[in-house]
Each structure stands twice: as structure tokens, then as C-alpha cells.
């Protein structure tokens, strides 16, 4: 009887997880690609003679933006059709966590990758001669935007394929769901923020193609800082997955672990977005005012560091929830 119950729960968690993964995972890429298509149309209306180049660039940019939702599709298909092995209640929690992680994790990267693609299309209409530089800059920027989605994919795969059957059910179920939420939610801000920086760098390259070296450099620095909240999320997920928690009958321990995941996850959204905004402003003005590049880099990093502080508070509260209480 008990075995049948676990089997049913695992089946239910797999289908719910698959729905969450692709349902939420489809949001970002669709918005990002729609935005790209919108600005590509604007670009064609401004400069119809190079519509072929704009069309090609649009498709390449959209293909990169699509990858995050393809990750979500892969996780959903695995959840639906994978052989789950011996069914335990913990497996059900892990599958649900995997779905949540990939579903939320694909939102930011999908939207974010749309910004550089869209600005590159618009930039082509302004500066057709810089098309090679624009496309290169777009590809670098949108590839970095995908990292948070890749973090989510990694955590989702670990949750799908690791064997948790030796661990006690009670606190571990919350740790696994918390692990999924932590990386998944934190990826939203970092993906979106990284995209903002990449978008304004494509705009800047189109405006002043000769500034590409400085613009790409400050874009990458800004994006790297904007990734930090997603890395905090990944760190907390790894602790929650790989730390062995002693069995307990109490509900507090489980809630503390779930809460740790929620805290770093939600806490990463704002700083990720904020760091991206700061980077967007800095990149935009490096392209317009190259002599001030050093000042702009400095103030961007100071501003990002302050914006990062709340993500660090969230990380500290999560670590206290995991290790102290």
C-alpha cells in the first residue's frame, strides 16, 4: 500500500513538474523573441534595402534566445518519459524541484537574450557597415545571458538523476524543493539584467562602431557582476542538495531549509536586475563618451556593489537558516 502511494506521488510530481518547467520556461523566450521581431520590423522600415541582413540577424538572435526554453522543454520531456527507478517520496520532491528550477530559471535568460538581438537588428539599419561587429557583440552578450538558464539546467539535471533514496525523508524533501527554487528564482534577475547590459552595448556599437573594444569590455564586466546573484542561488542549491541532513520528526527544520531556498532565490531577483540596469547605463555612456570610460567603469562597479548588498543579506539569512537554526 505504502509503495503504491510513493509511486503515485512520483508520477504526480513528474507531470506537475513538467508542466511548471515548460509553462514558466516558455515565458521568457517568447517575450525576448517577440521584442527582437518588433525591433527587426522597425529596422526594416528604416532601411528596407538591407532587409535580408536584418532578417538573418533576427533569426540568429532569436535562436540564442530560444535555447533557454529548449532547456525547459528537455527537462519537461525527461520528467514525462524518464524511467524513475525505485519510487520514493523523496524522488517526488526532487522531480518537483527540478521542474520549478528549470521553469523559473528560463524566464530571465529568455527575455534578456532578446535585448541584444533586438538592438543588433536596429543597429544594422543605422550602421550596415558594422554588421560583423554587431553580430559578434550580440552573440557574446546573449551567450552570457544564457548562463543563469544553464545553472538552472545543471541543478534540474542533478535533481532528476541523483539517487536520494538513502537520505531521510523529513528535512530532505524541503531541501530539494528549496534547492530548485533557489537557483530558479535567482536566475530571473541575472538573466534579465545581463540582457539589459548586452542590449545597450549593441546599441552603442551601432552608434559608434569604433568603440567596440571598450563597449564589449564594460558589457562583460557588468554582466559578470550581474551574474553574482545567480551564483549565490547555485551555491545555496548545491549546499541544500549535497549536505546530508539528519532525520528529524520536527517541521521547523524542513521549513528552515525551504525558506533558505526561497530567500536566496527571491533575494537574487532585485540585485540581478539592478546590476543589469547599472551596467546598461554605464555601457550606453561609454559608447557616447569614450574619454570618461574609466570614470564610468568605476561608478558602475560602486553602484553595482551597493545594489548587490541585499543579495548578500539574503545569502547570509539563508546560510543562517541552513547551518545555525
Amino acid at each position, binding site marked *: 500500500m505504502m509503495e503504491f502511494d510513493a509511486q503515485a506521488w512520483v508520477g504526480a510530481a513528474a507531470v506537475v513538474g513538467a508542466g511548471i518547467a515548460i509553462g514558466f520556461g516558455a515565458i521568457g523566450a517568447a517575450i525576448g523573441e517577440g521584442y527582437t521581431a518588433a525591433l527587426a520590423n522597425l529596422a526594416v522600415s528604416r532601411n528596407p534595402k538591407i532587409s535580408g541582413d536584418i532578417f538573418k540577424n533576427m533569426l540568429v538572435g532569436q535562436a540564442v534566445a530560444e535555447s533557454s526554453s529548449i532547456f525547459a522543454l528537455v527537462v519537461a520531456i525527461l520528467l514525462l518519459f524518464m524511467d524513475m527507478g525505485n519510487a520514493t517520496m523523496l524522488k517526488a520532491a526532487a522531480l518537483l524541484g527540478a521542474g520549478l528550477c528549470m521553469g523559473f530559471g528560463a524566464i530571465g535568460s529568455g527575455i534578456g537574450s532578446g535585448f541584444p538581438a533586438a538592438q543588433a537588428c536596429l543597429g544594422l539599419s543605422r550602421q550596415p557597415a558594422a554588421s560583423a561587429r554587431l553580430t559578434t557583440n550580440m552573440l557574446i552578450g546573449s551567450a552570457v545571458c544564457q548562463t543563469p538558464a544553464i545553472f538552472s539546467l545543471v541543478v534540474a539535471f542533478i535533481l532528476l538523476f541523483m539517487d536520494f533514496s538513502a537520505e531521510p525523508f523529513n528535512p530532505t524533501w524541503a531541501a530539494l524543493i528549496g534547492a530548485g527554487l533557489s537557483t530558479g528564482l535567482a536566475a530571473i*534577475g541575472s538573466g534579465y*539584467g545581463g540582457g539589459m547590459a548586452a542590449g545597450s552595448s549593441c546599441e552603442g556599437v551601432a552608434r559608434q562602431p569604433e568603440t567596440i573594444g571598450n563597449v564589449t569590455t564594460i558589457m562583460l564586466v557588468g554582466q559578470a557582476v550581474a551574474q553574482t546573484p545567480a551564483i549565490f542561488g547555485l551555491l545555496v542549491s548545491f549546499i541544500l542538495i549535497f549536505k546530508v541532513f539528519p532525520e528529524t*520528526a*520536527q*517541521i*521547523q527544520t*524542513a*521549513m*528552515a531549509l*525551504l*525558506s*533558505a*531556498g*526561497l*530567500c*536566496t*532565490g*527571491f*533575494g*537574487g*531577483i*532585485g*540585485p*540581478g*536586475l*539592478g*546590476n543589469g*540596469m*547599472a551596467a*546598461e*547605463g*554605464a555601457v*550606453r*555612456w561609454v559608447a*557616447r*563618451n569614450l*574619454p*570618461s570610460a574609466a*570614470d*564610468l567603469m*568605476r*561608478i*558602475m562597479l*560602486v*553602484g*553595482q556593489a*551597493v*545594489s*548587490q*548588498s*541585499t*543579495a548578500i*543579506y*539574503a545569502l547570509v*539569512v*539563508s546560510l*543562517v*537558516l541552513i547551518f*545555525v*537554526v
Partner: protein
Amino acid sequence: MAIEGADIVKAAAFLGAGISMGLGAIGPGVGEGITAAKACEAIGKNPAEAGLLTRTMLVGQAVAESTGIYSLVIALLLLFVV
């Protein structure tokens, strides 16, 4: 094994601490990011005032940070006092 009222309060306090700090971190993060972006714009337009602009940005961000610190205080209260 019986779960008592005090256990549920403690469990809810832990969950509340995470939600408090997690959601509370969104606003300051975004707000300080907007401040930094606008400060970059201002320096781009008027590089001579970089020092003054950096100071203004930091003061503005410190004010925006206060709600994040409130969240942290409430989270720590929920963790260690309740």
C-alpha cells in the same frame, strides 16, 4: 511525534524570515540599480562632476538600502527572537 503549537509557530517564523529577506531584497536591488544607471548617464554628460555625482549616488543608494535593512532586521528577529 505530535507537532505542537510552538513548533508550528517556530516553523512559520523560519519560513517568514526567508520570505521577508527574499522579497525585501528585490526593491532595494532594483532601486539602487536605477540610481547607478542614472549616475552613469550624468557622468557621461558631465564628466567634470564625477566626484560630486558619485557622492550623490551613494547617499541616494544608502537611503534606498534602508528597506533592505528593515527586511534583514525582521528576518533576524524572526530567526532568533520569536
